[in-house]
């Protein structure tokens, strides 16, 4: 029987029914201990060329072995498999920037990257900046400027600052605003965040000089 359900349109030929069957079939292998995303049974068999589920991620300078579903985003792996809850999920749709992390030094939204896409890359999260109790210069700058209010956006903003300043340490205030325009702050603490970023650039310049 074909029943075209347009609202959840299977890309043309795979029917919803097939899909649900698949879920029922794989539901049997749900493991306890898995959080939001289940740790096994996403698909019945690994097809040729398909990715392996058990991967090694390099996060904050450490190699972490982790079982990752095919559809799992980096934000979820960080938060629910690696315990790195500093990375926040504000929208899960690349609309807010709270989940920004560095992938090989480049700021990206971890909600919009599959974990499997960062195998072999160096991932840095907010937890990876400070050295023990010694804050990263960018964090220090934020403290000195008392940046952020509710601070749910702060980890994402700070990662964007780190990535930006590492690449271009001498941006003007306008350029910095452009570089940080992929992060939303609903408290709208933008002027103070920019102060922090400018101070951070100054600190970074002096540490590298």
């Amino acid at each position, binding site marked *: 029987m074909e029943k075209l359900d347009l609202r959840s349109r299977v890309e043309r030929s795979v029917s919803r029914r097939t899909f649900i069957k698949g879920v029922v079939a794989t539901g049997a292998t749900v493991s306890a201990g898995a959080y939001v995303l289940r740790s096994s049974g996403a698909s019945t068999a690994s097809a040729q060329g398909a990715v392996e589920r058990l991967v090694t991620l390099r996060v904050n300078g450490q190699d972490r072995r982790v079982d990752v579903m095919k559809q799992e985003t980096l934000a979820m792996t960080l938060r629910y498999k690696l315990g790195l809850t500093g990375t926040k999920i504000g929208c899960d749709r690349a609309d807010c920037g709270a989940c920004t992390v560095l992938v090989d030094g480049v700021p990206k939204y971890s909600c919009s990257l599959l974990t499997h896409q960062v195998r072999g890359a160096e991932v840095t999260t907010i937890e990876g900046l400070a050295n023990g109790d010694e804050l990263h210069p960018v964090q220090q700058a*934020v403290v000195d400027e008392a940046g952020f209010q509710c601070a749910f956006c702060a980890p994402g903003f700070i990662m964007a600052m780190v990535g930006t300043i590492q690449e271009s340490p001498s941006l003007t205030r306008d350029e910095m605003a452009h570089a940080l325009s992929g992060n939303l702050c609903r408290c709208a603490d933008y002027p103070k965040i920019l102060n922090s970023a400018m101070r951070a650039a100054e600190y970074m310049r002096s540490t590298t000089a």
Partner: protein
Amino acid sequence: MADFKLIGQSFAPQDLVAKITGRAKYAEDFRAEGMLFTKLLSSPMPHCRVRSIDYSAALELEGVVAVLTPDEVPQEEHPFEPALTNEPVYEGEPILAVAAVDEVTAANAIELIRVDYEPLPFVLNPLDSLRPGGPDANTGGNVYNGREITTLKWDQSVFDGVGPDQMPIGPGTEEDQWEYGDLEAGFANADLVIEETLYCQSVSHHPMEPRTSMAYWQNGKLYMHGSAQSTAQARRAIADRVGVELDDVFFIAEYCGGGFGSKIRGSVLEVIPALLSRKAGRPVMMRITRAEETMMGRARPGMLGHARLGMRRDGRITALDLFLVQDNGPYSRQGDSSTSGDVSALGYTPEAMRASTVSVLTNTPPRAAQRGPGGVQIVSMLAPVVSRAARQLGVDPLQVHLVNAPNHETEFGRGPYPITSAYVTEALTQCGELFNWSERRQRSGQRNGSKVRGVGMALSPYYGGTSGWDGLVVIRPDGKLYIHQGVGNLGTHSVVDTAKAAAEALDFPWENTEVVWGHSSRHLPHSSSQSGSQTTHAHTRANWVVGEFAKTLLQELAALELGGSSSAYQVSGGRVFGPGGSLTFAQAAERAIARGGKFDGHELPEDINDMTRTSATALAGQGLVAAAKDNLPHTARTYSFVVSMIELDLDLETGMHEILNVTSVADCGTVLNPRSLIAQGNGGVIQGIGIAQSFKWAIDPTWGVHLSKRIEATKPPTMLDIPTELIFAAVDLPDPQNPVGSKGIGEPPVGAGAGALVCAIEDAMGGQHPSHQPLTPDKILSIVENDCLPCGRLETHV
């Protein structure tokens, strides 16, 4: 003014390092053994009745643990808002929740549920409901009269001959109208009478952190991790909603990723993980998605209205006749429309005024107070009307504001209500100087290619504080002062800044002070919620009072221990000293414990709240425990004021604008923490600018279904939509009814920012008042090209 050591200094709050290292745990950051996840089945239509639900297939799905239905959650008569319902009154209202071992399973289970819905008539635009025979959002009626739901339909004649983009003016509800002075005489005495249709859109709160929560039960007690603007008040609300005793609820909310009024007492949705967890016998995490936050989170009520304003040649406003129809949403009565009346009465002190409002129920997302509720709407709607009148009479808008400015003696509005203080003239003057108003004003209307310069300003009064809450401090044998705060930690820094009043009263060094907050097991007092700009005022008072009380206890203790009269002892620098010698706080704490009674919390004042009593009792014997209720006089209403001025370039070929300067000055009494004030002030101003610029929502008129469920579509302001620097200052003059002179500042900046931006655009457009926010390029171009708004009718959800 007293010479303060802590008040007026900039401090970074002590939780900042945790926040910026990722160590601060918000609700979704907690884990518990065996934790389940829940997904919600929500209403696909704006108003319907669930005829039947078949979730058997969902329960059969491997990994699904429990299903929670409306029959299992407390249901009361409308307008009580249940956590799950069989008669959804807005699209996206939750009907059923599934708990499963993971979210994929829970979501897949939702897809296996069969629901039979009976669609019911629905209404999105309040005017539609007021038409004869128009639909009602609720089976009980369509409008609020005071707090009662009743039915109001206007006569067809109200609508006859009214253009599609004009406001029909029918009768308001009885409880919601007032007037003072001789309105007709006021208009007769005016040199100009101006009439405008008013419009302000509904906007979601959209805090960065959705209202996620996690709950579990241990030994019959509920542990709830949530996101709230108050620990004390949210805990109370959870107990009420779930139906358990206050003492059986532990609420953990050390950090709140933004609320703006949408999480004042937490969230009604917290009932779901609480009850699911009890049913499943396992912890349950309910992650709220952004789309759900758009629907089930809260929103500011939009308004449609009409203003008739009389102005004399000198700028004095002689009469104001205000008519407002509020889009109340489906549930509890929103106070915005009545606040709008008060705010305009205070901001412009018209010689005569009438305010008539109707609050209409609609099948749109539930509303709640949003930072400056009512104030933002009316300032952004009315400021351009005043500005336009000033233009027509050839008076400078700043002059108009000065002429009409309230002062300490002003009594305003429905009361009329006296106010504690108003340094509005000072604020206007200071802002004019900082902004260089007269010089920038010269540039108004200057053309540069397709760009036109616009300069605008607005004054935004807002209620600035409550009183009568409790303070609770403990001086422990470690020599530290522990200040317990039941307010939330919204990031306004007021959880810390108001604690300084207690340290200030005790003249105690800040380094040795610990602020205790965010976890109800930490024994918190009965505190206000962090909303309504009340915290600063309410808790500087409560903490000052409890600090003074602790000081008295220390003096009495010292007198008992060291001899002499208590009044001969002084408290400063962590010591109490006098004729008989001195005690450090550490020593005092030990002596207090030894003496017991009123010194260590075993005897407490009569007038404190039960919650404070329970907390203080639990702390009893751990040091010098002081609990006190704020009984200081509060004989008038406390109001704060912000004036904002904006200069911008409007491109008439694209409809886009570039803001060049934003300068604001506040009258918020004594400044507690200058850097936090500037952040709060500018943040509020930017939020207001955003509402006037681009922030909005969209609901399809035919289906009543939300189309802008994501932030990308609702468009709150980004860093590039404002200048990289904004100026915010304060007159810094003390309010006489606050021991440290402070008044609240959370809300008034929003209206000022929104109003100033609308006025600046109105100015750039040569006095054309685009009465339809947000002022996106489509509206600007439509007015420039066709002298009309694009939609052609007063639609409330575009």
